[in-house]
């Protein structure tokens, strides 16, 4: 784990960061390039400090959609060969190649970046069992291999991230060459010495990706609860627990995004007591059962998976979150300005309540909330760019 620790050279309990987030999804499944996301992050440059940026793209690899796309960063070629040997031992590698990139002025040393399209040898009994196996392998590589880190491991999606400003990272990875129906993007302001590409966001596991702005004060118990369920929190970033919590409650326990929001940013007890039955009993049961997964402290996250984008802020709105709709497009951002820049003709914008999830589903036409939504009939004048 020595390499991963270079982000955390002082062995801090966790590395936190403040950040700018942006995400958009075309609910029809139509693929778009990432220019909107890059533009949006540039509008929120103040929210980062050049020490980390990244993108997650869904619908990215239609030609390899049946394979888990492992994006791997390695310290050197020997490490890469080691991880490749590991993958060969447990998986069938359908395709492998360096992740295309362009040297960018002003960026420091870059790791070796490869992608592997892999399938499990032999079919698992059911999809969930297969995904559990993938999770175990990713955790094993990331926690045990000294110089290798799997930072993206889903099907038909990919994460691209590193140390640099968002425009630098976009240029480095040639993000203009990729298309996807769902993009999330992140601009980072860590409160700690940088140095490690793996510490940038989005954070990924399987097809989950998380971009996160905040510091989770409940991290200690979130981590211990997830450890009880087999997740190794080795990265010491609080973002990690969001990804694992999402995996546990939505994939393994099968909760819908709305119920997941009730776990991660649950209503207050007095709000629950004011609900009608059966909601009251259910929300109470959720807090009783999943209380250790409540994310406390300031945060905004965009959690994405295949066909789904979820924006969520903490219960008392200590970090910003705005959402917007234009036709089939859903936007989630730290700042409204970024949405206006990315989509000058935005139709509806609103600020979700604390703990209220913004959920976009593939194939479901988005609807603005019935209250608290601003309608822009005329596109506001754009003064950026």
């Amino acid at each position, binding site marked *: 784990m020595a390499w991963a620790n270079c982000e955390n050279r002082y062995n801090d309990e966790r590395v936190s960061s403040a950040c700018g987030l942006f995400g958009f999804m075309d609910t029809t499944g139509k693929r778009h390039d990432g220019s909107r996301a890059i533009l949006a992050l540039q509008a929120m440059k103040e929210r980062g400090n050049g020490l980390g940026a990244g993108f997650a793209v869904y619908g990215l690899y239609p030609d390899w959609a049946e394979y888990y796309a492992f994006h791997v960063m390695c310290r050197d070629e020997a490490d890469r060969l080691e991880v490749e040997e590991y993958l060969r031992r447990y998986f069938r590698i359908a395709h492998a190649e360096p992740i295309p990139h362009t040297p960018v002025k002003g960026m420091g040393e870059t790791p070796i970046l490869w992608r592997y399209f892999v399938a499990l040898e032999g079919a698992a009994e059911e999809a969930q069992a297969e995904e559990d196996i993938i999770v175990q392998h990713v955790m094993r590589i990331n926690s045990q291999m000294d110089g290798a880190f799997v930072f993206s491991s889903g099907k038909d999606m990919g994460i691209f991230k590193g140390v640099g400003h968002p425009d630098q990272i976009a240029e480095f990875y040639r993000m203009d060459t990729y298309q996807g129906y769902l993009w999330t993007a992140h601009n980072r302001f860590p409160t700690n010495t940088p140095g490690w590409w793996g510490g940038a966001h989005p954070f990924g596991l399987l097809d989950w990706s998380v971009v996160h702005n905040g*510091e989770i*004060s*409940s991290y200690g118990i979130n981590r211990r609860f997830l450890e009880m369920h087999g997740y190794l929190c080795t990265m010491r970033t609080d973002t990690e627990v969001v990804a694992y919590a999402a995996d546990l409650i939505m994939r393994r326990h099968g909760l819908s995004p709305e119920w997941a929001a009730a776990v991660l940013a649950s209503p207050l007890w007095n709000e629950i007591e004011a609900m009608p039955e059966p909601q009251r009993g259910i929300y109470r049961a959720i807090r009783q*059962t999943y209380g*250790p997964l409540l994310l*406390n402290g300031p945060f905004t996250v965009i959690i994405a998976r295949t066909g789904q984008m979820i924006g969520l802020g903490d*219960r008392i709105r200590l970090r910003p979150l705005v959402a917007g709709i234009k036709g089939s497009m859903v936007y989630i951002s730290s700042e409204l300005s970024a949405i206006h820049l990315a989509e000058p003709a935005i139709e509806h914008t609103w600020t979700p309540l604390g703990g209220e999830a913004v959920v976009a589903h593939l194939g479901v036409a988005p609807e603005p909330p019935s209250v608290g939504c601003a309608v822009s009939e005329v596109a506001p004048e754009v003064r950026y760019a």
Partner: protein
Amino acid sequence: MALSLATSQFIIERDETRCIACQVCVRQCANDVHYYDEENDRVLSNDASCVGCHRCVTLCPTRALTVRRNPLEFRPNANWAAETLRNIYKQAETGGMLLTGMGCDQPYRIYWDHIVLNASQVTNPSIDPLREPMELRTYLGAKPERLALCGGAQRNPVLETVLAPQLQLEVPVMFSAMSYGSISFNACASLARAAQAAGTYYNTGEGGLHPALYEYGANTIAQVASGRFGVHLGYLNTAAALEIKIGQGAKPGIGGHLPGEKVSLDISRTRMIPEGADAISPAPHHDIYSIEDLRQLIYALKEATHYTKPVSVKVAAVHNIAPIVSGIVRAGADIVAIDGLRGGTGAAPTVVRNNVGIPIELALAAVDQRLREEGIRHRASIVVAGSIRSSADVVKAIALGADAVYIATAALVAMGCHLCQNCYTGKCNWGIATQDPYLTKRLNPEIGSRRLVNLLRAWSLEIKEMMGGMGVNAIESLRGNRDHLRGVGLNQVELDTLGIRAAGQ
């Protein structure tokens, strides 16, 4: 009787310029320390009988009395402390086992005082509990591993998982087991009323439940101990939860003995034993000689109450506490109460109280970690006791992994107890640990319960303030969150056992 070699522990100083010989002190002292000299119209004191309870000092209308410790008159000796000598004198005189009351008073390390809390600065805003919601509500009982939910949040939601019965606490502090018999009816009534007013629970102890207190059943945890005093179906069904008492922190491994002179008519009826008969609780339950026997009793109680009430099992913190609690959870307990080395008692052999068991902080940390490693932490709530002295102790206990705490000594202190440690004599001048009607009427349940409610309110405010500082607004985000704790002055083994880092790390 031969001259006692045990010298008095306290010196009573009476300011003659202030004393008006009103004899309040004479009437207040059940130990007959003060007496009136009619001939000289003076009140005098025999300080050899003084236990240092400060009743006379507190009630003296002219503030004429001072009770001081008798300065150590023995030649200094690091090995033979004064108390050791006094104990030997007493035993040489009586040939008996020495008794004491309340919790261990020996200078074992108090880990609470070596743990400090975190607060937010810059990267994370602290939360102001005066402006923002701050939630202390706690549910005790077994939790499912996962929920099976169908439907959307608004449209036809269906919860398929059936949850085990839960206790709802508005503050994660309950009043620990103190039996009617060990304490007075008025003390029991104070606890019951306060539990109801504060939205928490009190525990009957092993002495049954007086009929006059049945109305507080919804805030009552009914104990079933080895003597099975006062246990009947009505008792079980009246309470909100049941607790099987296996052990007690002040006297792990031994039973209890309520002397016959304390078994009044009322107590005999409540305990279902003859008036004036000794109430002896055997050391073990005579139907529990192993873990599977415990399981049978747990399920017997659940059957008797139709699975509507959580069942707690209370044990003393001893060396192997982690696997013991693991076994208790697997035996079906919904709550495990763990009582530490410094837990109190109405009567215990001094040697046992002072030497048996382990500190609750270490026991709690070990148990919580073990249950997590075994993946069964959700199957039971953990309640810790012995001793929780302040809201800071509560916060630290919860951050170490407790779901809630029990307080008893602190509750008695709130009602007036001055920790003289003479509960076993039945002469409690504060009207708490006595059955003497002349003494028990000194504790008014109205006032007693109000003081208890005040204590819980004050602690709640302090807990909220500390949580807000840490940047959490729900107690479940503090529970087991050891990242918010740091150790000061602890060695690495202690830090590792507590599962916390040293301050500065």
